[in-house]
Structures are given as C-alpha cells and as structure tokens.
C-alpha cells in the first residue's frame, strides 16, 4: 500500500536526511570491515592459512576456550547477582525504587574504564577488601583477586550487570501481581508460587539480558586486560596483540572475522526472539508485583539480603573512590593515614594529564556535534520514511552498538593509515561519533515517537515552512532526546580506550588512554583523582537527569 518503492518522490526528503549517516557507515564501517574479510584470506593470493592456524593451533584454541568460558561464567554470575536485585526493585515502594534506580544507573553512567580502575584499586594486595577481611579476621594472608580468573569475573560482572538488571526489571514489571494472589488462592505456597509463576514468566527477561551480556562479554577488552593475567587472555586482546606487537595483519583479521561472525549470530538470535527496541522497556500490566503477604518472611529475607549485597557490589566500589582520592597513599594502603590534595594538583600541573584532559574534551565535543547531527537527521528521516526497508535500515544504523569495538578500531586503523589520519583528533572524533550515533539515534527516535505527526502538519498548515516548523515546534519537543543523546555520546567518547589505543599517538593521547596505561603499567596515584572527578561528573549528570525527568 504505497510502500512499495523506497525511491518514490515521497521518500526523497527522508532519504536525504538518512544519507549522511548511511554514507558514513558505508565508508567508515562497512568498507573497512570488508577489508578485514579480504585480508583474512591472505595478502596477495587467496589462502586459508590464517584460519587453519586459528583452528589448528593449541594457543588459539585455548583463547577461544577462555573467551567462551569467561563469557559464560560472567553471564551466569550476572544473572545470579541481578535476579534478586531486579526482583526487589520491581516490588518495593516507589521511593525505594528511586534509590535502587540510582544504584543501577550510576554504574551505567560511569565509564567502564573508571569502574575497572576502581576495582583494581580496591582489590589489590593492600586494598580495601583485603584489609577489611583481615580486620574482621576472615583471612590471615591477603588474597590475590587480581590478574587471575576471579579479577576478570568480578570486573566484568560489575561492568555488565546493568545490562542484566534493566531487562529483568522490565520482565518483572510486566508480570501481573494478581497471578501470585491467584496461585495462593489455588493452594500454592510462597516458594511454589515463586517457582511456578515468577520464574517462568521472568525467563524471557533472563534470556534477553543473558544474551546481551554474553554477546558483549565475548568482545571484551579493557577489563580482562587490566584485571586478568596471561591465562585469561580473550580474543579481543589477541587481535590487538597481533596488530600491535606481531604486526600480523592476516591473523588479526581472521580472528576479527571469527569474533564478528560469532557476535552477529548471537545478535541474530536475540533479534529473532526479543527485538532491539524492547531491550530496556518493560510494559506495566495489571497490578504490579508487590512484596506483600503472598511471600513468606524467610523468602522476603532471602531476597532482601541478596538484593542488598548486589546493591553494595554495584555502588560501593564507585563511592569508595571519592575518599580514596584524597588519601596520601591511595594505591597502597587502606584506610588512609593522611589526607592530601596532591593528586588533584598533579592533575592540574602535570602536562601529561592536563594535555590528555583537554584532548579528550576536544574530541568528545567534536564527537557529540558529529553524532548529534548524523543521529538526529537519520532519526527524523527514518520516522518519515515509508518503505518495507525501514526495519533493515534501522537495524543497520544500530550495528556499531553491537559490533565489538576492537573490530571497529581495527577497521578504522586500516582505513586511516593510508590517509595519514592516525594520530589526528578529528579521526578519533569521527570514530567516536561512529560508536555514539546509535545512542543519539535511539534517543531522538524515542522522543519523535511521542511527537504527533499531525502537529507538524498543523504548523505547516498554519503558515510555517519546514525549517520554521523544525526550529519552533519539533526541536523543543525532541529536546530531551537530544540532551540524553548528547550525554550518552559524550560519555561514549570519554569512555573509549580501544579506539584511542589504535588511533592516537603519544602526542594525541586521550585521558582514558592515559588512565588505562597508568593502571596497566605504572599505577600513578593521580589516576584516583581522575577517577574521582569522572565519577563526580557522572553523579551530577545522573542526578540532574533524574530531577529533570521528575519535572516532566
């Protein structure tokens, strides 16, 4: 019905609005990835050597096994930690919901690098955790949490937990609380009611969150690199290793292709059963679940204790950084024996840090501007497009969000190298815009959905031309979406290590890269000050956001 031809006259405007993003994706995303495919089959003549090595050799087999094992354990761990937390979050009073939302969203809005850094500080031999356990008398000798399997596990579960909690929360919210009352009326006790009603009905949420966590884990880089030892090497690290140290482009490409295909397959399963847009939204139906008398006291106690532990796990490492940042010996000792502002002064006076800070700021601002333009224009274009191709285009626009960043980094590296764009701020900003545009796109699309197209028609009918309409009517309506999108874009840029490692040189290093290298190689205490500032900024942004949302 009038939807047949995507190139019909009606679609001209929408296609024009979509074009900048589509062109950028083709040039900086599809084309380089096609290049990776090509070089995985040899430089000049077609060969399968790289793949044969990847599959045949013991070393690589061990790395594939590591990757899958870590991803699986992380996924299961995230489910176990998140399930009671999300359940309690869906059943408590509204004011408690606000608190718990803050507890999930603060980590969500804080850079993964900063969180990993926090864990490294807390978990070292003389860190908060070991000292605390010793004081209580649980242990005599410090436990080594870091540079082994447990380090990777703790770090990754923490980083990925919000992706598990949010879909689960959505799933619990869509369970009608009257079902439990009915089950009770039919003779089911509290545990049986839970096992027979809640568990099966929340299974889709578990599956959705689990797939997302698993998919993201497989391509993970920073956390295993900072918190794991050599035995925990994951595939992304191996790709970087081949690129940077071995200069074996063919092998790096073959591994990247294997990682890419695995990720896309998982995503295809996710898309088939759940759909991308449902990722974070649960529908409230009927009466919400409540922590009422349908549960036994023991059951309530078990859930509340597990949820409290999960909440402490989520938020404590982030909060502890704040007092640590003014400790004289942040990396070495806890509790601090003296306080100082030295690390903050360092940050300001040491050119290595201050330069990195301003480079990052500059790059983040550029990335926000670029992604804001591309994402907004594409979102408006897509919402006005009439074509059967629409869902395909939408999925395509989202792909940078799903593809492991290491693959994007490798692709951009090979694209920029011949253009001599390695080390340029603009090049990195464009890369960040590539990662950030889907967020802007999602946010603007969501706010456009509540923008009735008749309002646009009305404005035009009342005498406004399209640009006046956009400026005076549409822009104020999608403003919250633009703000949310910009913040996410900014965080994405300010959070990125992987692209920065590949695309910057010593002179154009960004703040995250300096932090990363600091944690990995020399444990400069200034890092704690940087982390504290970044956490503080996230808190301010999040609280402002929550207040603005309430005002709406």
């Amino acid at each position: 019905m009038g939807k047949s031809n995507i190139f019909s006259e009606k679609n001209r405007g929408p296609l024009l609005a979509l074009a900048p993003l589509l062109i950028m994706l083709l040039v900086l995303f599809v084309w380089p990835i096609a290049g990776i495919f090509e070089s995985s089959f040899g430089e000049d003549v077609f060969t399968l050597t790289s793949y044969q090595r990847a599959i045949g050799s013991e070393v690589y087999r061990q790395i594939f096994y590591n990757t899958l094992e870590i991803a699986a354990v992380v996924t299961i761990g995230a489910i176990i930690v998140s399930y009671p937390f999300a359940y309690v979050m869906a059943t408590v009073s509204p004011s408690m919901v606000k608190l718990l939302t803050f507890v999930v969203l603060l980590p969500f809005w804080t850079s993964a690098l900063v969180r990993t850094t926090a864990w490294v500080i807390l978990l070292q031999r003389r860190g908060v955790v070991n000292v605390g356990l010793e004081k209580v008398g649980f242990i005599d000798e410090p436990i080594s949490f870091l540079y082994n399997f447990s380090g990777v596990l703790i770090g990754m579960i923490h980083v990925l937990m919000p992706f598990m909690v949010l879909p689960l929360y959505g799933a619990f919210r869509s369970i009608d609380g009257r079902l439990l009352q009915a089950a009770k009326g039919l003779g089911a006790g509290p545990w049986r009611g839970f096992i027979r009603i809640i568990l099966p009905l929340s299974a889709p949420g578990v599956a959705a969150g689990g797939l997302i966590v698993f998919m993201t884990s497989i391509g993970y880089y920073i956390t295993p690199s900072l918190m794991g030892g050599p035995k925990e090497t994951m595939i992304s690290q191996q790709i970087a290793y081949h690129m940077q140290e071995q200069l074996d482009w063919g092998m790096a490409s073959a591994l990247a292709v294997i990682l890419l295909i695995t990720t896309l397959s998982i995503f295809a399963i996710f898309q088939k059963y759940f759909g991308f847009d449902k990722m974070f939204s649960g529908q409230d139906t009927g009466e919400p679940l409540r922590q009422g008398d349908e549960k036994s006291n023991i059951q309530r106690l078990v859930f509340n204790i597990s949820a409290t532990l999960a909440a402490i796990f989520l938020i404590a490492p982030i909060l502890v950084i704040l007092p640590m940042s003014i400790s004289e010996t942040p990396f070495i000792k806890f509790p601090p024996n003296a306080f100082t502002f030295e690390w903050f002064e360092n940050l300001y006076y040491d050119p290595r840090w201050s330069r990195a800070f301003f480079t990052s700021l500059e790059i983040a601002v550029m990335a926000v501007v670029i992604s804001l333009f591309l994402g907004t224009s594409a979102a408006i274009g897509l919402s006005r497009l009439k074509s059967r191709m629409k869902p395909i285009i939408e999925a395509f626009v989202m792909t940078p969000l799903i593809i492991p960043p290491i693959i994007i980094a490798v692709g951009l590296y090979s694209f920029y190298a011949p253009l001599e764009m390695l080390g340029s701020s603009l090049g990195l900003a464009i890369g960040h815009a590539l990662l950030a545009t889907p967020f802007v796109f999602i946010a603007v699309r969501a706010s456009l959905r509540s923008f009735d197209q008749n309002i646009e028609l009305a404005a035009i009918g009342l005498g406004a031309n399209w640009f006046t309409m956009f400026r005076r009517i549409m822009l104020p309506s999608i403003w919250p979406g633009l703000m949310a999108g910009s913040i996410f874009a900014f965080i994405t840029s300010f959070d990125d290590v992987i692209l920065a490692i590949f695309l910057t040189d010593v002179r154009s290093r960004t703040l995250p890269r300096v932090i990363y290298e600091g944690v990995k190689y020399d444990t400069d205490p200034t890092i704690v000050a940087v982390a504290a500032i970044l956490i503080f900024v996230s808190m301010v942004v999040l609280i402002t956001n929550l207040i603005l949302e309430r005002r709406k």
Partner: protein
Amino acid sequence: MSNNPTMKSVELTNIVKKFGSFTAVDDVSINIKAGEFCTLLGPSGSGKTTLLKIIAGYETPTDGSVKIDNRDVSHVSVEIRNIGMVFQNYALFPHMTIAKNVAFPLEMRKIPKKEIKERVQETLDIVGLSELGERYPRELSGGQQQRVAVARALVFEPDILLMDEPLGALDKNLRQSMQFELKKLHRRIGVTIVYVTHDQEEALYLSDQIVVFNEGSIAQKDAPEKLYNAPNSAFVADFLGECNIFPAKIDGNKALLDNGMALKIYGKNNFLQKIGIRPERLIIGAAAKNCENSFEATIDEVFFLGQGFKYILNANGQIWTAVSQNNLNTEEYKKGEIVSVGFDANDIISLTK
C-alpha cells in the same frame, strides 16, 4: 475577524486518490457553497480524512481538481491555501501557551506584535477562553483544548475551516454542548466549514449538507432531512438512523416481501430492490388497525431506552424493530404478547440498492 467574515465556496471535481494500488478516494465530486456547513460522514476507513487532507493540500489527488472560490488550487501548496484545520487530536503545540498557540499563524504571516495581541485576545473571547491564555494545553480539559484548536484555526481568517472529527475524543455530554457551541460559532462568523465525523446524530444536527461515504465513494449527498427521509440505498438508510429493510418485489401498488406479506405502496417503479420503514413510524396497538398497512406480530424482546421503548417484533418469521415514546399514555407491551403493527404507505422508503 468579526468585521469581515471570509466566505469561499469549494468545488471538488472527480477527485481520485490512490495509495499504490489501493483507491482511498474514488471519483468524488462535491459542491460546497460559500458559508455552508458541509459534513463528510462515513464508516472508518471510508476516505474522509484523506479527502479533507486533499482539500487542505496535505495530499495531492491522483486525479481531479480542487477549486476554492472558482480558482483551481490543485497545485497550490498548503501554507498558501489559507485554510484552517482542526485535527482530530487537536495537534496543539505542547510547549507553547494557549495564547502562543493561537498567535502562531499570525506570527508566520509577519503581522505586527500589537495587532497579534489584539487578534489573539479577540479570538479567545469568541471561543470563551479569554482567561486561559497563559495556560499550557495540558492544563486544559478536552473541551477547552478543542476550542483552542478552533481558535488557532480561525484567528488568521481562513477562507475555509476544516475539522476532522473534532469532538471524537469528548464524552457524550460535552460533545453535545460543543455541538451547540460550534453551530452558534458558525452562525456568528459564517465561515465555510467542511466537517468530518462518523457520528450520524452529530452530522444531522450540524450540517447544511451531508455527504455520506462508503469505501471511498459517495453513497449519497443531500440536506439532513432529505437524507434521513429519503435515503436511496440500504447503506445510507442503515447508517443514518435505524431502518427496517426488506427485499421486495413490486407489483403495481403492491410490494411483495419474502415471507409472502403484501404491502400497499404508492407509485413506485419496478426497479426497486428493497423497501425500508423507520422504526419510529411503526404504530403498535389498536390504532395500527387504521393504518394502510397492518399486520399481527409477536413481541420477541423489549428494551427500555430511557426516552422510549424498543420492540423486536416477529411477524411470520420476519423481524421488525419498532420504537415508541415514553409518554404517560403509551401502553407498555410485554415479551410474548401478540400485537397489531401498522404504518401508512407513505412511510415506505424505496431503496434502489
């Protein structure tokens, strides 16, 4: 606006609108006189909104022409046609106050600030919202929002006012009082109005002319009384009010129904396929015997409607509906009773399809 009402006629000739292979509007021609209140009435999906959008210029017709005041505007764009439109959900700008909403079209026309202020106030007075200019749309009730939408569509003195189911979202009482307000407003400013609704009572109450739509084409168009009393098809008879409709064979002054009943009928031609009798024309009880047509029937069901009773009657296998007024002297009949039913030959509506 009060000084010089603009009144323009609208002439639609052979309008066709296709979406791909689907025809949403099929060869529609309507003449709307200057100052007339014309209603497009039809079931959901019959093409009313599409036709309204064609008049406004939001959609271009696949074929046919739109003339306003005898000028062909088929290729004139929306913002130049000078048409006011009230959308079904009002489409008020949520981030602007009521006064700003109403001022918007004047600002677009670069009218001096001072004059804008005066005209906004004047128009808000007309719709009875003078006190609410500083509020936001979400702070108004549904009926008030509707009046803001009307004010915004009128303030720039449009040649024509288009309204797409403007009362659809309101409850019954509010809808009735808004109908009354609308009719007063139309009398007062005299602007030509094209109105869309699928509520037949509303159409009968408001309009000078009703155009009944069915699947994209015009089923019938006429003044309300004529349309009600002389529908030409079973579709129109049934859509406008209730009707007892039966297939019939005409034989001279007799109409033969399927169950063998013969009804007296005047001067009807042999092309008739169906006849219709409005339920309120049926007389029940002793008086029925004096009618030109009368028969016995069993009462199958009785419904109390408030203002009257509705009877479902079974006459020899044929089901009839009758309504009676709830007067003090109306007799009440019980389910299962056998009663006489009657009507005059003139009460029969002849339907060609």
